[in-house]
């Protein structure tokens, strides 16, 4: 650190910051404050929290570290970033867990007070890293955060423990100074949040400012400014994937003129969807916490029969349990939406980590020929849109629809331009009103779409019984007739195929022909886009197409593929979409890049993989 010198102000397009500390240190809270301030100051932002699997993992150990990563920039911020420019580590364990992810030359802020021999041992450091070369590669800010925090609040009447709980605010203050951020947004937030606990608000405010002032005083060698992003004008808010999913369903219910029903059982990382829906009694939502996943989906089927927009939410193990009943919905041809927030498998696997390994289960994990519609969201905010579309397709095509998201989307958040509900596509559920028809035939299909009509229980004149046995075409009576069975199997298949007409074409990002097309689906979107853009900037010829519609596939898929020599499918599993595509269009030269580590791709590994495939 050089004295008596104005710091260099680096102008940057992108910066990645990671806050890390013990689970109890408030890192999530800190991270969200920083993200909000940045968004409000006009940056693009993408974030990702990273919790330990235990509720309260042992303090001071690497297993107990909780982190929050934020990527801010002026454009193209679609991933939370690979490596951090700035790491805040509130104890030795946090440093241990995250050091390998800090860029060479990046800034590391530590609470030097916590680097006691005992803590170093708990964290698994053999020697004190602060005295051991860290400063050669990084800008180290070894701040006595604990003691300065105590100092800052000594005039307030708060106990020791409470005072120390605001250490995160000190760190945040340092970072705000480092990035030329305005404190006002956070101060306003604190005031609102603690409006009945004035003392706490004041405490946090004092410590925040102490951190800020500290940073100003120690005369850092380098600070950063990030240009404002060119965001579409409008009103923005933060949203994470689970909330966006829930709200997408709310929007669909409103646009379809139906009440929303959700029948679910809690499971990580999908629980927040149920939680949000339970809270939405204020908007007339019927949310039902069932005794298990089976009751979750079966009650959903019941609600659909009774005329609701009915949905259920879960993760992989829960989806496995729901398969028998999902198949019933296929047979009944009732509209339901199933949200699968994927996590690491098999079995209980890595319950808090993202993975894309439920794809084949969703496509084919049911007895018999059981076609359903499958969609996949790709960013936290577009969960809103794809949840909305899932509901639209279910209601208009009388079919179950599964929407795939994952733990990465569910917990990640993005600034989101609040949509105007009027601009969303119309939803016309296929309901048949009392009196419209002389005679109702439950399995009569509308020509051209294969869709049957929905006579809601309670409608006079359309009394009818449906069930899981094979049904005679048109009448829906039980039928064991061989030809009828085959006919119905094909009609159910055709009905799902027809959905193709309602979904957008596959778009190519980059040249629409060339040597290599990178294919992705789901949450890897941001990483792939970034990798491909960077490579194109570096002069490589590579394009990208991202699938949001898994079944049916967009109608131009084959045509798009045919313009490329090689197709590289990148996914966070062992090649499930790769297998599916190859079974659909075997004629192309597919390659795969896979990763099953419970963590997202990094941009750099993707770039490597792409370059390698361009070469051979």
């Amino acid at each position, binding site marked *: 650190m050089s004295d008596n010198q104005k710091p260099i102000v680096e102008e940057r397009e992108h910066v990645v910051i990671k806050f890390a500390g013990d689970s109890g240190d408030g890192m999530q809270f800190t991270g969200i404050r920083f993200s*909000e301030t940045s*968004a*409000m100051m*006009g940056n693009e932002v993408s974030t990702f929290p990273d919790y330990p699997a235990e509720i309260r993992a042992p303090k001071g150990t690497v297993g107990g570290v909780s982190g929050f990563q934020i990527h801010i920039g002026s454009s193209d911020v679609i991933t939370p970033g690979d490596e951090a420019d700035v790491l805040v580590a509130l104890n030795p364990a946090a440093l241990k867990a995250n050091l390998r992810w800090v860029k060479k030359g990046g800034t590391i802020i530590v609470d030097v007070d916590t680097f006691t021999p005992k803590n170093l041992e708990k964290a698994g450091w053999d020697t004190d890293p602060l005295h051991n070369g860290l400063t050669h590669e990084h800008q180290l800010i070894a701040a006595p955060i604990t003691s300065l925090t105590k100092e800052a609040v000594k005039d307030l009447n708060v106990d020791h423990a409470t005072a120390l709980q605001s250490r995160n605010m000190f760190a945040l203050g340092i970072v705000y100074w480092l990035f030329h951020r305005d404190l006002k947004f956070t101060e306003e937030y604190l005031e609102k949040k603690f409006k009945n606990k004035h003392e706490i608000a004041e405490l946090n405010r004092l410590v925040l400012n102490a951190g800020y002032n500290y940073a100003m005083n120690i005369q850092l060698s380098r600070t950063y400014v990030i240009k404002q992003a060119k*965001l579409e*004008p*409008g*009103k*923005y*808010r*933060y949203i994470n994937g689970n909330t966006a999913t829930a*709200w997408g369903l*709310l*929007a669909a219910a*409103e646009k379809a003129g139906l*009440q929303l*029903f959700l029948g679910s059982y809690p499971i990580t990382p999908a629980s927040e969807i149920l939680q949000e829906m339970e809270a*939405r*009694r*204020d*908007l*007339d939502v*019927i949310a*039902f916490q*069932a*005794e*298990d996943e089976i*009751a979750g989906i*079966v*009650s*959903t*089927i*019941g*609600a659909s*029969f*009774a*005329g*609701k927009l*009915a949905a259920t939410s879960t993760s992989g193990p829960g989806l496995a349990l729901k398969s*028998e*009943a999902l198949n*019933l919905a296929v047979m009944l041809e009732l509209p339901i939406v199933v949200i699968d927030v994927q996590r690491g498998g098999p079995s209980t696997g890595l319950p808090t980590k993202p993975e894309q390994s439920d794809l084949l289960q969703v496509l084919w994990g049911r007895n018999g020929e059981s076609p359903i519609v499958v969609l996949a969201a790709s960013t936290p905010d577009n969960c809103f849109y794809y949840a909305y579309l899932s509901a639209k397709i279910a209601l208009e095509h009388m079919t179950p629809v599964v929407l795939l998201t994952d733990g990465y989307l569910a917990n990640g958040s993005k600034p989101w*331009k*609040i*949509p105007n*509900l009027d601009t969303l596509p119309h939803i016309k559920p296929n309901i048949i009103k009392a009196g419209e028809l002389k005679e109702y035939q439950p399995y009569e299909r509308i020509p051209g779409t294969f869709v049957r009509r929905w006579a809601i*229980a*309670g*409608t*006079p*004149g359309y*009394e*009818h*019984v*449906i*069930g*899981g*046995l094979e049904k005679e075409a048109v009448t829906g*009576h*039980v039928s064991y007739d061989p030809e009828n069975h085959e006919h119905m199997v094909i009609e159910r298949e055709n009905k799902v195929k027809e959905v193709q007409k309602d979904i957008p074409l596959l778009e190519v990002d980059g040249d629409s022909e060339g040597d290599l097309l990178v294919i992705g689906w789901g949450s890897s979107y941001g990483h792939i886009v970034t990798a491909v853009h960077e490579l194109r900037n570096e002069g490589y010829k590579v394009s990208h197409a991202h699938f949001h519609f898994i079944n049916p596939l967009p109608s131009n898929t084959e045509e798009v593929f045919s313009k490329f020599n090689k197709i590289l499918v990148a996914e966070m599993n062992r090649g499930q979409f790769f297998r599916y595509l190859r079974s659909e269009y075997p004629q192309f030269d597919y390659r795969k890049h896979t990763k099953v580590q419970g963590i997202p791709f990094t941009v750099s590994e993707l770039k490597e993989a792409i370059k390698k495939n361009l070469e051979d």
Partner: protein
Amino acid sequence: MATTSNTPKYTFKDFHSGQQVRWCPGCGDIAILRAVQTAFAKMGIPKEKFVVVSGIGCSSRFPYYMATYGIHSIHGRAGALATGIKLANPDLSVWQVTGDGDALAIGGNHFIHEIRRNIDVNILLFNNKIYGLTKGQYSPTTPKGFKTKTSPYGTIEDPFNPGELAIGSGATFFARSIYSNMNLSVDILLEAQKHKGTSVVEFLQTCVIFNKNAYDYLTKGPDKENNFIIVKHGEPMIFGKNKDMGLILDENSNIKVVKIGENGITEKDILVHDAHRPDPILHYQLAALQHPVVFGVIRSVRKETYDEALYRQIEEVKQASKYHSLEELLNSGNTWEVK
């Protein structure tokens, strides 16, 4: 659910679906079907408000024969289905037909939770003490030692008593009837419909193919009336072909059968049935009784139902809420303008 005054007058035939009944001749299900159709006609509920759901089993074919809304679903899940329908539209009259296998083997969990939550659904449990549809394996109500296809040497497990299980799960209504007693069945069905909350009605039902003698002691022979009692709220628990037997509580609080006129016992000593007492102990004992078997409405107490509480809470929350539209929700919290 709404019972409007201008509901058409029905007869049981109005509830025939026209589908050919596919149960074995003599199957108890046939008689119960008639009882249900008869009772439905008397309820003053418009036909389209009835929803009859079931799982899988011989008994679960029931919805096909009813000219109402219905779903023949998957094995064991009728309870969850009925729950979803009732919560989605409490104005519907929801009837769940289920076998001893469907409700108590694979469907046991939904059964106990539905009862605990007190969902306003009527559960008709057709207990033939066997798996009929799959051709004669034992069920959770098959008596210990009974030989079936899967217990060629006799079962080795004691059965559930559905009444005990239901009351142990918090049942607000439990009644028992038998396929052969049409009047009793119709009366109980009407009571079940009137009861707000989960009504569990156990029907002893004969399977003439795989367990045909199960209920002979209740339906055949000159002494059959000594083997059961029909209880009525407010009436003394007297039974027997000579109407001279009764139930009392002994010094250990156990139910005991006594003979009126013997040992100084008079009618006054006989217990009077109180179906409405909130504490379930005596109802539990009556449901558990092996001899005589107790028919009639054993328990019927009023408690807020889940569906009532749900809609009550939705109303309360809406009153108190900050948001009154999705738009307001979307725009709530921290937002900012980009120009």
